[in-house]
């Protein structure tokens, strides 16, 4: 057996490039929103059931937990949407070089961070 084969599988020494992190977060945010849609559908049903239902939703949205969950959903939405737009821009052939992809991944993180902050300001 050759001795020179690469055997470095120590995950502590392997780190994801930023583009890979952007990709996995896109998946995670998508799964979060899929589950969250169940909550949102309940909110829609209750808020449209009548004035009492609407007031119930308003009262619920006054609690910290509900605001926090809503902020989380908006953050996942902001991230998923911004990275989705990046995806489509790259599909059209723009920014496909490694340095450009890293730069756009960085941009999407910053942009969605800003949007997440604004969503927090809006919710609270």
């Amino acid at each position, binding site marked *: 057996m050759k001795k020179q084969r690469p055997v470095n599988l120590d995950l502590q020494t392997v780190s994801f490039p930023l583009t890979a992190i952007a990709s996995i977060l896109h*998946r995670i945010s*998508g*799964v979060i929103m*899929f589950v969250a*849609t*169940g909550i949102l*559908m309940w909110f*829609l*049903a209750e*808020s*449209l*059931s009548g*004035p009492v239902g*609407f*007031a119930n939703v308003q009262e619920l949205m006054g609690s910290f937990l509900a605001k926090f969950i809503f902020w989380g959903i908006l953050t996942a*939405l902001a991230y998923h*949407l911004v990275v*989705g*737009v990046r*995806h*489509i821009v790259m*599909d059209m052939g723009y920014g496909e070089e490694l340095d450009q992809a890293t730069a756009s991944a960085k941009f999407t993180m910053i942009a969605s961070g800003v949007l997440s902050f604004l969503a927090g300001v809006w919710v609270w």
Partner: protein
Amino acid sequence: MVNNAATLGRSGVHDFIIIRVAGINLALYAIFLLGFFLTNDVNYLSWKSLFSNLGMQVFTIITLLSLLAHVWIGMWQVLTDYVKPVGLRFILQLALNAAAFSYVIAGLVILWRV
């Protein structure tokens, strides 16, 4: 050409187009709703009148159908990457697609009653 029976489109290219078209519609709906919240005094009457509008009802149903298509393909992509046992993946995808279908049905029933 590789075909997979568990995803939505007839081929990878078909999936590629469906997930993007559906995604654009989902984005437009989210931006529209955000715009409504930011430019209106949202109370029961304005909220109810928004969803009583036929155009909004159609937009909402199309968006829920887009969500069904988008998550069908997206969840298939995620599950085929991370869940290797076929039986478990089958059950998970069935459950997730059933949930997505439920969102569509719930949307229809909710809007029917507005």
